[in-house]
Structure formats: C-alpha cells, structure tokens
C-alpha cells in the first residue's frame, strides 16, 4: 500500500506571531518556518505503518513556492520515500488544496491519505474533509489511534463524550489529532540520505485545478491588548472599585 501524506510549511509554533503594520497579513520575514505539527504526526504515523509492513511507500506532498524544497527534504530525512512538490507562489485555500490532492490521488492511487486535522496557521480544518468528499471515499478525522487490517482502517477519535471508534473502508482519508503519536527526531545521517531521494516537481498550472479563492481576507489584526491592572490595598478597596465600575 502507498500512503500519501500532506506536509505543509507554517510559521513555527514557537514564533510570536506579529501582524504586519498595514494589516495585510502576518510577518514571515526572518521568521522560523517548520512543518505543521499535525503533519509531522501524519508523517510519523505513515512511517510507523511502513515499518510495521502495512505500507510499502510513503510520499510527502507540499504545495508552495520554489523554496519549499528544503522543507520537503526534512520530510524525506524523517523517512518518507519520496516527495511531490506542487509549485505555486501563492498560499492555497483548503478547497484548492483538496482539489490538488484529488489530482495527486488519481495519479498515485494511494491506499490511504493521512493529513493533519488542521494547519496551525489558518486553523481551517477543512482539507481532509473536502478531499474525502471530492474523492467520494470515507473520512476518519481527528485520529488518536489508527490500525489497518483487512482493507479497513480502525480509527479511534477523541470526541467530547469520550472515545469513538470507527471503521473506514480503504482507500480513505485520515486526519491526525495531537495524541496519535510523538514524531521522531531527525538524525544527521538521514539528512544526508534525504539529499538523494526524489522530489517530483509539478507546476500548479499543469494540474488543471481551478484556483478560485472562495474566501477573501479583509484584514488582520492583533487581539486587543489587555489594559493594565490596578493594585488594590485590601478587600474593601476592591469592593469599592468593583462597585464603581458597576460590576457589583
């Protein structure tokens, strides 16, 4: 079985996000970029399935500008067999991403597609679901445990009421939750090995995917700042202040 893994590059989770002064986006110059953490989990799960003999090949997919290659090399260093780079200078919205994956699914014929449940930049949480719908295959989202046997995926999902276990016929789309696994560390020799692994480059335009953006971002703004607190001497003063503000 072949597994296709979405591998998006985002602003690193440690970075303090700053909105551009003109409100047109967030600052990405000089900012550390790394793999979407849920995508790292997706890749780790695919690699474990391959190590268990369930899958033979793991392919990481990235959609982005020309310099995305270095990011995909990290996925290869982690252990993916090869990478597909869909080249587009613009960030794509979830529906476009799902359409790109559909084209790649048609070409690659994977038994399983594992995506992060959401990317930590736009937090859309849509691509996996949209891909399943377009592909007309089952979806199992927010997986915290995944087992593959007899052409079926058994997926444990964390839901509000507890744990839900569902079965999905393969091929299917699985999206990963935080507790599915802990991604491995990359080893130095594997970075060297990754240099000789293949990256297929496909121009976005060559895929024949409709690139219409259905969503328009009007403005970015930082959350309002908390105003400064006031120190009070004692409970009486606190009560007086609260009264004064009409809170008591």
């Amino acid at each position, binding site marked *: 079985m072949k597994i296709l893994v979405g591998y998006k590059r985002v602003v690193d989770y440690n*970075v*303090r996000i700053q909105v551009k002064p003109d409100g047109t986006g967030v600052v990405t110059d*000089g*900012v*550390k970029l790394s793999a979407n953490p849920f995508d790292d989990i997706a890749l780790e799960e695919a690699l474990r399935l391959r190590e268990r003999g369930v899958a033979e090949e793991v392919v990481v997919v990235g959609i982005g500008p020309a310099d995305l290659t270095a990011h995909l090399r990290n996925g290869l260093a982690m252990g993916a067999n090869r990478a597909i780079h869909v080249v587009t200078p613009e960030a794509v919205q979830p529906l476009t991403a799902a359409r790109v994956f559909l084209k790649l699914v048609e070409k690659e014929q994977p038994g399983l597609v594992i995506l992060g449940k959401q990317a930590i930049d736009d937090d859309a949480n849509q691509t996996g679901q949209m891909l399943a719908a377009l592909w007309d295959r089952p979806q199992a989202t927010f997986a915290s445990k995944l087992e593959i046997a007899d052409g079926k995926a058994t997926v444990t999902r964390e839901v509000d009421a507890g744990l839900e276990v569902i079965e999905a016929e393969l091929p299917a789309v699985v999206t990963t939750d935080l507790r599915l696994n*802990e991604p*491995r560390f990359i080893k130095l020799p594997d970075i060297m090995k990754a240099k000789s692994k293949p990256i297929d480059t496909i121009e976005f335009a060559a895929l024949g995917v409709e690139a219409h953006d259905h969503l328009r971002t009007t403005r970015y703004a930082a959350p309002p700042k908390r105003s400064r607190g006031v120190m009070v001497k004692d409970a009486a003063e606190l009560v007086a202040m609260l009264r004064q503000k009409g809170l008591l």
Partner: protein
Amino acid sequence: MSERETMEYDVVVVGAGPAGLSFAIRLKQLKPDVGVCVIEKASTIGAQILSGAVIEPQPLDALLPGWRDNPPPICVPATEDEFWLLTRTGGRKLPVPPGMNNHGNFIVSLGAMCAWLAPQAEALGVDVFPGFAAADNIYDERGAVAGVRIGDMGVAKDGSHKPGYTQGIDIRAKVTVLAEGARGSLTKQLVKRFQLDKDSDPQGYSIGIKELWQVPAGRVQPGKIVHSFGWPADSRTYGGSFLYHLDKDRIALGYVSGLDYTDPNYQPWEAFQQWKNHPSVKPLLEGGSILSAGARAIVTGGWQSLPKVEMPGALLIGDTAGLLNVPKVKGTHQAIRSGMLAAEHLAASGLDPAGFDAKLRGSEVMAELKKVRNIKPGFKKGLWWGMLNAAWETATGGASPWTLKNKADWSSLHKLGECEEPRRDYVQRELPPRDRLAGVYFAATEHDEDQPVHLHVADTSICVTRCAEEYGNPCTRFCPASVYEIVQDDAGKRLQINAANCVHCKTCDIKDPYQIIDWVPPEGGSGPNYQNL
C-alpha cells in the same frame, strides 16, 4: 545499545555564525573538494545570533565580491553617528571617537545576515545542519581533537530515555573549527585541556541585552547610529548603550554592561530598562511594540587575552577565540576575517592547524586589536580615568610601551557590605517589558521541560549558605532571563534553576563568583528563537 553512528568530514565547524559560515565559504572557494559541515544548536540559522549590529563591509567584500547586489534582508547604510554622555535627565553630545565613525558601514541584523550566508555556503557544497548541538569534543588515540559528538535527543529530566530517544552521532573530522561565539562550551573544555590560555590574560566579557522595536511611523531616521555612556551606569561600572535606526520604522537598541562590575547587587537587565526611559530614548519608543528581544555575552578581553588559537586537530575563530574590537563595538568584521584566514591557512597547509596561531597574530586582525588593547582595561579605574586613558591610547594609536592587564570577571565582585553600594539614580520605568519574565517572552525561547537541566551547578549547597551570605546570590540578578531563583519550600531555601527560560547568553558561566556553574548545550534546537536580532 547499538554502536554509535559516525559521519566523516574533512572539516567540522561548530557554530553557524559569521565566523563559521565565512570560514566554510572561503574553504570551499579555495578547495571545492574538501568536505565541510557546519553544525548549529539553534533550530534555524540565525535564531540564536544576537548583535547590534553595525558592520564594516570590507571583509564581506573580500569574501563575497558581489554581495552588495544581493544584500542581506536588513542592511541599512550608516548615515550619521552620535555619541552621548548621559545624565538622568539629559546629557551632552560629544565628538564621535574615531573608532565609532561608521561612515561606509552598514546596520544589519546579524541573525538575518547569517540566515543569508548559510544558503550561500550550501550552494558551494557545505552541509549546514541547524538543530544539532555539539555536546562534546572527541579525541583520537594521540589526544588530538578528532571531531565532535552530537548531543542525544529524547533524554528525560532524570536521564532516562524517552520513547523517541535518539543517540547523537559522532562527526569525525581531520580538523574541528570552533566558531561558537563568546564563551563557547566546547572551547572552554579545550582551553583547559590544552592550556591554551597559559600565556595570555584571563578572558574578559560583557553582557549585551537587546530589543528590536516597531515604532509609530515618522520617528525613524534610517541609518542613524547613537551610542551613549554614563547614566544609568555609575562611574565604576562599564556600561553603554546602542541605538540603531533601521528601515520600516524599526529600531534596534541595547545596553552593554561590562561583566567586570563589582557590585553584587547590579542588574544588567534593569540597567538596560532604565536607559530606555531616558528622555532621549523614551519618546522614540512610546506607543511602539517589541518585535524580539534577547541577550548574549560579548567577548571583550582583546589582544592580551587571546588564547592560543590552535591545538592538535582544532582551531578557534571569531568570538570564541576573542577577537571583538571593544572601542569599535564591533566583532563581525573580525569574525569574518579570522574565518577567512583560517580557511586560507588550512587550504595551504593541507588541513594542518599548526601555524594558524602565528598567522592570526601576524595579521591585521591582531594588529587592529593591539592598537586598542589598553582602552577597555583602563575603565577598571573608573569612568573618568578610563576616558582620559582612552583618549591617550587613541591619540597615540596604542603606541604605549605598556599593556594593561585583564582580570577574570568572576573575581571582580565585592562581597556584600565590603564596599559602599553605588548610588543608583534610577527612575520609575514606564515602557514594557515590566520584568524579566515578560521580557523573555520576546526571545521565544523554547526548551522541552522534560530534559536534563543544561545549567550544571557543581555544588548547590553553597547557594543558600556561603553565597547568600557573601554575595546575596548574584545569579538571581545577572541572569537576564530569570533562570536562577532562590525559593523557599518545606525543606528550606534552595536554588531553583528555570532552565527553560535560558537564552544561552552564558553570563552565569562567566560571572558566578565561585565558578561552579557550567553551561552545556541543551537538546539540539532548544533555546531562543530570535527574529532579526
């Protein structure tokens, strides 16, 4: 346990700063077939580089002749220099000392510049590995340096192996080039092992604390460079500020305190915050926001403190050797030059470090340091004597027949009550950050909490007994990130080390008066994530 994996290179470079990257680029330019790798503890290149920084471009011209057509992302030509002696409420503009004349220089972000240099090294075939910390030196059977050992990943706080445990590999190389920056942890071991400092004075350091601000439009004059001394430092403490106007309404600013300060109650971070409230600075910042912040020790010992920079199998370049020029407040040009010189030496010697020490000492790098060797140590006698001495040394071009001595910074602290505490003419601060914890937030520092503490304190029983009595635990004050805290719990008082806050500045390793703190690299990729510092 399986046998440790090994990778072989001709040359391994520790540290992807200006020295290490320039070295790697130059060596590949001269000898394209030599295998070179650069390892870097930061998760991404430049994320743990912090500098002013105004740079002299000549060494960069020599290294990358076309660089001006493809400059680093932050690169603002210097326009005007100002030099101020501050008082609490005002100050006096002084003539700009010759070393601080920045005509022809550029204001850069050294972090961004390194991130710009790294791909150029890679294009020449250098393997650059961010996120991997060199934990130890390795030696061959003759005792020569034979490479470095990468730190293990996935070790729990108690030393046990977590599920993702990954053993660090050995990188074996004919030559190991230490380019770790000031007070490198591997360099520290090598200096001791090979007695590299037996013929030199002890090394000296300062701590620089920096913030990058985004300020309201219309206040910035791109290219303007302002240095000051005086307030908030007392006349016995060596301290001064820098304030550089960048483009896009950004200002880089910081405050440098000599770590030879004597008052155990001195707080370098507080001095920086005080200075920001000076009437010449505060109006520039008010209403703005901090983009990034951090701290780093600076090497200031200069000519007389330079250790031997070669040993069997290894050599030292840049600030880990100690090449910063204090009166110029610049080290990048020296780092680049020494890196290039080391590459040229190795290319000519068939990768033999022997002879590099003599080569460096005979070069313009050391000639530059020799001229200014007496300026910084002169300030040990106080501000006014230091200024007179600096004027003399500058006028004579360092021709004095004497060389003033450096003392180790850890030995300079007075004990509590031993001397009168200097009067600190401090103000009520109004600009953010409120305290060090609020400040460290802007360093975006990240350490997995479940890993061994990377600040080794050899004997913590001293902390609440002897040190509390003699010095009042200065670690709780000199650390710019509130790593050290004395806490009280059921068992009594004890030292608590908040290692996750650490910004890798190395001040504790330098200034601790008992020399029992050993800074070692944490898990690779841990530490601050500076943006454009």
